[in-house]
């Protein structure tokens, strides 16, 4: 399991992403004759150097520095992603755990099949259906994620529920499935049998022995879904007209605003790297084997 974690979560993937991104940047730059008089490596070097110093370049469209746009958008996206994550992680894990404890009974079938069906649907399809049901027919939730200026946290949250639901649905299936298979494996293991035979109450066995082991692979999955989530954000933010990093990249791509595009994508690369690191850290905190080693 530790080996698997190491394979799936190497800390350097995030850094590796910067390679292909930079290369794409170079390709784009070349194609559109953006300062091709200088050698690409020099351009790339200056760009990275400036980026590290907080200068992300100047937008072609807005004729203004890119940084404030990117930072605002990133903040908005983080809010949206946070709402989706706060909803999906506990509910997804709970769904998987319930499914595993009711293995092959109707409840398990419903959770597994339902989770799988909503996971495979594109976000804009579930988004449209949710907008129609909750925004247009029931009129419970606003259909665009644009709250009045200066709105409080609760109002913002109210506007963010509908956009976060499609992301929730896509992630729910993955997380529930991983939690389910992790649980099944843990329930079937020798240590669980030992714990039961040693006379521990079932509840304690589940909480102390099964859950902790079962959730390790789930955390790995949650981390790998960060990249996926970013792709989903592009779609969702467009659909709900939300000023996040996804719609920033989308608008920049459409308007061929390269400094904005590059800054947006590099920011995503950094976010991805940080998310991977955090997942790595969480994994080691939760892994009883690693902690046991520290105690000795």
């Amino acid at each position, binding site marked *: 399991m530790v080996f698997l974690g190491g394979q799936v979560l190497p800390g350097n*993937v995030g850094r*590796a992403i910067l390679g292909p991104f930079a290369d794409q940047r170079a390709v784009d730059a070349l194609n559109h004759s953006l300062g091709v008089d200088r050698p690409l490596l020099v351009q790339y070097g200056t760009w990275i150097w400036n980026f590290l110093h907080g200068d992300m370049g100047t937008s072609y469209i807005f004729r203004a520095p890119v940084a404030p746009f990117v930072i605002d958008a990133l903040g908005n996206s983080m809010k949206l992603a946070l709402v989706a994550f706060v909803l999906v992680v506990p509910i997804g894990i709970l769904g998987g755990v319930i499914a595993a404890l009711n293995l092959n009974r109707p409840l398990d079938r419903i959770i597994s099949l339902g989770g799988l*069906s909503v996971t*495979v649907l*594109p976000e804009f*399809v579930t988004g449209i259906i949710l907008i129609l049901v909750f925004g247009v027919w029931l009129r419970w939730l606003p259909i*665009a994620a644009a709250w009045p200026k200066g709105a409080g946290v609760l109002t913002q949250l109210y506007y963010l529920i509908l956009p976060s639901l499609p992301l929730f649905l896509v992630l729910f299936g993955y997380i529930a499935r991983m939690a389910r298979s992790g649980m099944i494996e843990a329930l079937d293991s020798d240590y669980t049998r030992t714990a039961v035979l040693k006379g521990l109450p079932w509840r304690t066995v589940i909480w102390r022995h099964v859950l902790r082991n079962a959730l390790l692979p789930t955390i790995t999955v949650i981390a790998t879904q960060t990249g996926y989530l970013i792709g989903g954000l*592009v779609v969702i933010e467009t659909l709900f007209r939300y000023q996040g990093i996804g719609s920033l990249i989308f608008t920049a791509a459409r308007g061929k605003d390269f400094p904005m595009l590059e800054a947006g994508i590099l920011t995503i690369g950094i976010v*991805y790297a940080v998310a991977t690191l955090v997942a790595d850290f969480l994994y080691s905190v939760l892994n009883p084997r690693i902690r046991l080693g520290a105690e000795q």
Partner: protein
Amino acid sequence: MSATDTPAALPAPDTARRSPWGEVLHSLLRSGTFLTGLAILLFWVVCALFGEHFVPYDPLDADIINTLAPPSADHWFGTDQLGRDVFSRVIVGSRDILTVAPLATILATIAGTALGLVIGYFRGIVDDIVSRVLEAFMAIPVVIIALLAIVALGTSKATVIVVIGLSFAPIIARTVRSAVLAERELDYVAAAKLRHEGALHTMFVEILPNVIPPILVETTVRLGYAIFAVATLSFMGFGIQPPSPDWGLSISNNYGMIGGGFWWTVLFDAMAIASLVIGVNLVADGVHGAFND
């Protein structure tokens, strides 16, 4: 006719003993999941191929005096903002996505299989380098890759096929690689080496036929994701272009008005995408089950 003739029901001319493929087919035909998915998929394939001959209206014909009409006996699914019949558009709209997504999947399968065979067979430094590059590539969301590629190359069906095909190739390569790693240790590969067969011959003639099952499973799974990706790109305006009645494109053209209550302009397209994606995933699930039981 002799008694040894294969019954006409079996598609492949099987050898005398019961072939593993026959067994797979047998278990597929008994799988409810697979048959349901296949039925949905076949329905849309028929719509894509022959839809334009049986729909009540031309899906591209505008009717200016009859725009945004709600569903009625004349227009079962209503009309859109140009007065085009939504029912006809939904039926014929299956065509582009059912051309682009399978072609992208085939490209991904061919490229991924070739790559996977090579890195799985040679291992060592080639494998190390290529695998790291593939991992990095897989970490980037397809939507982002597609966005960049399409900005650089311009929008066309060919670009979409190439972008999706190449973004999925690493995933198939990874599957093929792990299958090849197991196969290359077997005796028949050693025998081929002893016969001084070339590396290419060993890879494509000896190993390839034995790793077909995982490739087939991965391909059907990828087809589901390809439909997902094509629909999403069309919705974003980077995929199939107007005036095609494509579903994603129609939703993107009409969703701005759903606040006004014109639900029929997007709901049926959304349901069509949902049914196709779920259908393909049911098929993939069935194929996966048939090969792993």
